[in-house]
């Protein structure tokens, strides 16, 4: 019964459009959402995706259209929120390689990018496609990742000019991470640089000037691993890639080293769990910061980064902000990779500090284990303290981090590498101290390197935050709320019940009618979803245990909400 039903749900997309917009023509059109009018936000469009999986990919808006990527097996929908009665412009259903369904590791979801009048789609199962935004017709199509090995595509591609940059995911399967470049108009591959292996693979040449001494040397991506282990070393480029137009550099974090069990990979395991600055032309590395050498808790550093300009220690400066899964916010000089600060934004006991001079964390010896065995109460727990994509507000100077405040018991076991199967060698039970909040929205004062305020949440946050120019921060929660808080004080101004948990980032955009809209794709905050037996405390890498008490969603599948002002 069950497979049939599931197939039905997956195949027949139920785009049940419920026109709920009540035309209230009396009020003058407002051009932005502000604390004053946020309470009047109401849904203008809802759409059920029919997929019961967690909806991780944020919708993308371009030219007044909203592009929605549903979970794997994907449907790409083009919607026009300005015409609520017939919003669906087109639908693209890429051919799916079912193997990827079981391999959505490390928060990988695939993603969409709109750029230069093109739409680029990276599917979870490794397909990279360019489409015509207006019609949905395919311009080119290529295969970027091999799901047979557990390799998937994590985040949306980055397009700069006529180049497209994309990273892979698959750390949990022992897949070597890489970042690649394609010619955007044609889909011709340009280069591919790996996270592990010899310098030629990694893209390390004469221009590579890492700030810290430990990162200098020949073939460290090979020498810092036991023989051959780098071939299954992980370090996927799972998070978004950041483009710095001023310096002309790409920044990206690298994922965790594989397997999770550090006893199986003595050494610093370069270049996993760190930050790369790369030349977009050649992909050659400029600098690298090793955030967690040896990555003893397999957290990686593949989170979203941000570039900001603000006054740092009395003088204006461009800074690269890297909120790391290890629970610290790193401030770096984007040109050199110099570390300026690394303060915790979440409860951290795995490190006691970071030695900014050599860039290495000061590990808490009690939370390290280089043998099979068990570590208890390691904070933060996998997959890290950064729950979703943070956002920076220039107006407030605050960096809004949706945080997960979990700790873990992690047991290291023997890890067997079998191609296409999970290569972890660890078992995790996530939890918190009783009574402690499991999640929070942390407003990080970048200049002061401390939290300005935080909004505590009963469950770890899984989606991103959106800071608007109007002085609001929007974020969704796993228990199915979309919240708007005052960007300066964190005061809750508006709350909407989504009916299902949100684990993706809200987006704001202007519609074809010139009015502001807010969209969020909600869909199952229960991590891996419903096929979990919560009696197993390690289910879904321990997340199921950490979400104890989370009420089941009212909506069976995902729902897209588009909100507008009346």
């Amino acid at each position, binding site marked *: 019964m069950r497979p049939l039903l599931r197939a039905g749900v997956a195949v027949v997309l139920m785009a049940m459009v419920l026109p709920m917009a009540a035309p209230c023509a009396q009020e003058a059109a407002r051009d932005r959402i502000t604390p004053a009018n946020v309470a009047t936000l109401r849904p203008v469009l809802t759409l059920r995706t029919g997929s019961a999986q967690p909806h991780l990919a944020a919708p993308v808006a371009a030219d007044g259209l909203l592009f929605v990527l549903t979970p794997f097996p994907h449907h790409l929908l083009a919607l026009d929120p300005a015409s609520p009665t017939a919003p669906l412009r087109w639908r693209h259903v890429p051919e799916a390689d079912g193997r990827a369904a079981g391999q959505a590791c490390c928060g990988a979801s695939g993603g969409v990018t709109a750029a230069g009048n093109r739409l680029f789609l990276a599917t979870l199962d490794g397909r990279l496609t360019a489409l015509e935004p207006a019609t949905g017709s395919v311009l080119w199509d290529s295969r970027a990742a091999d799901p047979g090995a557990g390799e998937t595509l994590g985040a949306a591609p980055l397009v700069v000019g006529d180049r497209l940059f994309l990273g892979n995911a698959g750390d949990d399967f022992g897949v070597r991470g890489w970042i690649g470049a394609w010619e955007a108009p044609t889909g011709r591959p340009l280069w591919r640089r790996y996270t592990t292996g010899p310098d030629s693979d990694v893209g390390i040449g004469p221009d590579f000037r890492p700030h810290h001494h430990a990162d200098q040397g020949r073939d460290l991506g*090979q*020498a*810092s*691993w*036991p*023989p*051959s282990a780098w*071939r*299954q070393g992980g370090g996927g480029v799972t998070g978004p890639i950041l483009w710095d137009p001023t310096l002309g550099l790409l920044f990206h974090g690298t994922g965790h080293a594989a397997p999770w069990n550090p006893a*199986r*990979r*003595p*050494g*610093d395991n370069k270049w996993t769990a760190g930050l790369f600055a790369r030349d977009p032309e050649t992909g050659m590395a400029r600098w690298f910061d090793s955030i967690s050498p040896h990555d003893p808790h397999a957290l990686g550093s593949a989170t979203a980064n941000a570039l900001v300009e603000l006054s740092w220690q009395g003088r204006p400066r461009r800074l690269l902000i890297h909120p790391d899964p290890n629970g610290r916010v790193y401030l770096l000089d984007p040109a050199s990779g110099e570390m300026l600060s690394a303060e915790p934004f979440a409860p951290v006991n795995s490190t006691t500090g970071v030695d900014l001079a050599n860039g290495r964390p000061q590990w808490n010896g009690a939370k390290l284990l280089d*043998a*099979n*065995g068990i570590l208890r109460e390691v904070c933060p727990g996998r997959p890290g303290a950064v729950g979703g994509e943070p956002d920076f507000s220039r107006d407030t100077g605050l960096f809004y981090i949706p945080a997960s405040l979990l700790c873990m018991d992690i047991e290291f076991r*023997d*890890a*067997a*590498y*079998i*191609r296409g199967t999970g290569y972890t060698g660890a078992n995790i039970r996530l939890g918190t101290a009783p009574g402690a909040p499991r999640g929070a929205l942390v407003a990080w004062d970048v200049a002061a390197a401390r939290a300005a305020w935080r909004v505590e949440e009963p469950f770890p946050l899984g989606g991103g935050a959106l800071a608007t120019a109007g002085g609001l921060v929007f974020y969704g929660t796993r228990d199915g709320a979309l919240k708007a808080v005052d960007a300066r004080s964190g005061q809750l101004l508006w709350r909407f019940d989504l009916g299902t948990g949100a684990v993706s980032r809200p987006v704001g955009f202007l519609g074809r009618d010139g009015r502001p809209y807010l969209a969020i794709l909600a869909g199952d905050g229960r991590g891996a979803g419903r096929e979990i037996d919560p009696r197993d405390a390690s289910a879904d890498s321990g997340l199921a245990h950490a979400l104890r008490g989370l009420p089941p969603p009212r909506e069976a599948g995902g729902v897209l909400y588009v909100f507008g002002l009346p």
Partner: protein
Amino acid sequence: MKRASRLLPLLLAGCSGWQSALDPRGPSAQDLHGLFWLFTITCTVIWLAVMLVLLAALLRRPPATKGAAEAAGRRSARVVGGAVAATVLVVAGLTFASYLATRAISSDQPEALVIRLRGYQWWWEVTYPHEQPDQTLLTANEIHIPTGRPVRIELAAADVIHSFWVPNLTGKQDMIPGRSNSLVFTAEKPGTYRAQCAEFCGLQHAHMALHVVAEPPEAFERWRTAQLAEAPAPEDAEEEEGRRVLESKACAACHTVRGTEAAGNLGPDLTHVASRRFIAAGMLPTTRGSLAAWVADPQSIKPGNNMPMVSLTADELQAVSAYLTRLR
């Protein structure tokens, strides 16, 4: 007594060998050997004395008169008291001797070569850690050590309790899950010394052996360098086919051959399996025939071990054994 005197030369002569406590080849084993003979000779003397007294007591004519009997009784009391005192002295002396030997054996050797040994049911994983991670060497079922340099074996167990024992070099030490033990010893002469698991560990406890190869430091370094290299490439079509079979069949899920797609680590690392003297944890000498026999039917050779019988055609078996023989 007569029997003992007959057995003593047997004890002296017939007991040297490649797995014998009576054929010491390193300082630890020599200390233990010396201690063994100290104890043996002391105990033999005591035993002979007791037996002689017993014999004399049996053959002796008992005291005829009551007075003589009482005198004999008093004398006996003194003799018994003296014997007990002597026992106390001997026991104290032997305790002290064994304390000295313990101290000599367990003295810490900071410059020792560290080797990690992990016991599995029923094989041994050997790791040579190195401060440079890519010089870390992982192999199985054979330990190479340089002569004249102390080695410290760090012992761990993956499943049940095992015990590492190379009698020619030193005494045994247990490998206990959840605990770490270590053992320091030195081999003075080059040679191959057999070691065997000495703690009952299940079905194939009898076939859980390991060879310690002591060789001059240069030879050891040569061996180490050779072992660090990736597996040699196949040299002919048959070996090429063997590699393909190994990568595509169940072999690759459990065994690593560095440089190929086989990267499993549930069983011993096979990158240089043919360079090892024995396969299957000291069971069969490494020849192409024994490799083929082992792959063809591991459960007949070592019933209950964790390597399954993978069904291969005759040609595939030929090819795999050819390729494995190449892995020197």
